[in-house]
C-alpha cells in the first residue's frame, strides 16, 4: 500500500516535468554531454600514457561506465537531497513531518530528476562499448555481475548522498561539505583505485565504500587479481556492501531528523 503512494508520487513528478517538454529534452542532452565529457578526459589522458594505475584504456572505460551509470541512477533518485537546505530554510521540511510517511522517502519521491536519464543513457552506452572492447569470459555470473554492479553502485552512491546531506540538519550551509563527499566519490570511482595515494584510497574505498561501485566488480568481470592484494571475493560482495551502506545511511538520517526535531532551526 505504501509503495503505491510512491508510485503515484513519482508518476505525478513525471507529469510535472513533462509539462516543460522542450526544456526536458535539452536538459537530458546536457546531462549526457556532461557525462561523456568525463569520458573524453579519460581518452585524452590515454593519448599521453598507455596505462593508468596498471589498467588499459578499455579497462578504465569499463570502470568509468559502471560508475557513471550508478551515479546517474543515484542522482536521479537521491539528487533531490541537494535541496535539503532549502527545505529546511523555507519550512517545507516541516510539511513533510506533518504527513503520515517517512521523511526520507518523501524527500526522494518529492522530485525525481528525470533529466538524469541522459546521464544514465550515456553511462549505459559507454558500458556497452567497454564490454565489447574488453576480453571478458562470458558466463551467467558475468551477466549477473554486469546487471547488479550498477544497481549496487547506485544504492551505495544514494547512501553516501543521504548520509552526507544529513549534515545540513546541523549546519544548514553544510551543502559544500556534502558535495565534496558525494561528487568527490563519483570522481574517485571512475578511475582505478590504484591511481590514488593510500590515504585517499582507503578513505574512498572503505569509509565511503566507493571501490565497491566499479573497481572491484570490474576486476571480477575482467578476471584480474587485485593489484592491491585484495581477495577476489571483493568483486562479488557489492550488493552486501550496498545493503550495509543503506542501513548506515538510514540510521544517520534518523539521528539527523531526531536532532532537527529536538533543536529546530
Amino acid at each position, binding site marked *: *500500500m505504501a509503495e*503505491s*503512494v510512491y508510485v*503515484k*508520487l513519482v508518476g*505525478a513528478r513525471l*507529469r*510535472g*516535468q513533462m*509539462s516543460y517538454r522542450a526544456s526536458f529534452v535539452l536538459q537530458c542532452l546536457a546531462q549526457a554531454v556532461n557525462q561523456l565529457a568525463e569520458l573524453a578526459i579519460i581518452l585524452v589522458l590515454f593519448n599521453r600514457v598507455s596505462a593508468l594505475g596498471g589498467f588499459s584504456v578499455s579497462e578504465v572505460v569499463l570502470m568509468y561506465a559502471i560508475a557513471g551509470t550508478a551515479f546517474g541512477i543515484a542522482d536521479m533518485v537521491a539528487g533531490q537531497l541537494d535541496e535539503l537546505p532549502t527545505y529546511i530554510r*523555507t*519550512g*517545507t521540511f*516541516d*510539511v513533510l*513531518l*506533518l*504527513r*503520515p*510517511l517517512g521523511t526520507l522517502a518523501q524527500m526522494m519521491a518529492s522530485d525525481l530528476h528525470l533529466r538524469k536519464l541522459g546521464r544514465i543513457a550515456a553511462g549505459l552506452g559507454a558500458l556497452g562499448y567497454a564490454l565489447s572492447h574488453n576480453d571478458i569470459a562470458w558466463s551467467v555470473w558475468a551477466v549477473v555481475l554486469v546487471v547488479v554492479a550498477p544497481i549496487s553502485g547506485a544504492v551505495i552512491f544514494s547512501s553516501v548522498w543521504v548520509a552526507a546531506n544529513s549534515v545540513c540538519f546541523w549546519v544548514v550551509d553544510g551543502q559544500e561539505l556534502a558535495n565534496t563527499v558525494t561528487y568527490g566519490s563519483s570522481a574517485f570511482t571512475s578511475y582505478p583505485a590504484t591511481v590514488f595515494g593510500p590515504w585517499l584510497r582507503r578513505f574512498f574505498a572503505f569509509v565511503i565504500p566507493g571501490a565497491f561501485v566499479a573497481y572491484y566488480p570490474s576486476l571480477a568481470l575482467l578476471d584480474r587479481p587485485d593489484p592491491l592484494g585484495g581477495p577476489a571475493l571483493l568483486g562479488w560482495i557489492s550488493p552486501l556492501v550496498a545493503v550495509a551502506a543503506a542501513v548506515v545511511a538510514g540510521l544517520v538520517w534518523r539521528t539527523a531528523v531526531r536532532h532537527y*526535531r*529536538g*533543536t*529546530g532551526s
Partner: protein
Amino acid sequence: MIEVRDLRREFTVTTKVGRFRREKRVVRAVDAVGFEVAAGEAVGYVGPNGAGKSTTIKMLTGILVPTSGHVRVCGVEPSRGRRELARRIGVVFGQRSQLWWDLPLRDSFELLRAIYRVPKGDYEARLRECVDLLELGPFLDTPVRQLSLGQRMRGEVTASLLHGPELLVLDEPTIGLDLESKERLREFLADLNTQRGTTLLLTTHDLDDIERLCPRLVVIDRGTVLADGALDELRAEVAPERVLVIDLEQPSAALDGLPGVTSTRVELNGLRHHLTFRRAETTAAALIAAVATRAEVHDLVVVEPEIDDVVRRLYARR
C-alpha cells in the same frame, strides 16, 4: 482534544561576540504554557511576533519535541506518535505550501489521498463539498504555481481536510489575503466548526479572524499565557468602557453630570457627543433615557472596544 500542561521549549542561540568568539545563550520560546481545548471548540491563539505561537503549534503537531511538559493531541503524544497524529489532524500554514507547485490542484489532492489512504468514497464526498463551498471548480486543473494567493489558500484548506481530521490547526491562514478572500475563508471555517464539529485552533494577527471565528481566545506573550477565556469576558475584564455616540437635533454644550459617564467628547459643534461609560455602573438604555430628558436625540450608536485594543491592554497588563 488538546491537553497542554507546563509546556516548555528552549532553544540555544549562538551569537557572535567579537571576531571569533561565539556565545551560547538559552532562550525560552515557550515557558510553562498550559491550556485545554475541548472537542468542537474554536480557539484563537494570539500574541505578538516571537511570542511563541509557532513553536507551540510545532510541538502540538509533532514537528518539534518539547523540552519538557505534557502534550496530548487527540489522545496522542505528538512527538512520539507523529505519524498516527498526522492522520487525525489537518494543518494549514499560511506561509508554506503543502501542494505540489507544478501539478494541477486536482493532482495534489489525488496524491494526498494516496498519502493518507483515504477511501475513495470519503475522498470524493469531501472533495465535492470543498469544491462547492470554496468554489474551486474553475481552477481545479490549473497548476498550483499559477494560482492567486486566495485561490491557493482555498486549495491548502481543502488539502488539509481530505482525510477528515478531527482537529484543524491553522497558522496565519488569512495572511496576505484580500478582504473578499478572507471573508470567504472565514465563512467556510465557521461552518466547518459549527456544522461539522471540527475543532479549530488558529493563530492569527488579524483579530477580525478571532472576532468572526473564535468564541475563545488564548493570549500568549514572551512564552507564557497572559489570558485565556471568552472574548466577551476578556473584553469586560480589561476594557470595561463602552462609548455611546449620540447625534442631537440641536447643538448643545457638553452633557456633563450624567450618572455613570466617565468622560465626554463633543464634535461637530455640539451636535455629536461621545459618552464613555462603564458597563458595571450603568447600562446603555439608562444612559439614553437620561440623555433624552435633556436634549432631542437624532441618532445613536454604542461602540464596543476594538479587539485590538483588548489585546493591547492584555499585553500592557504584564
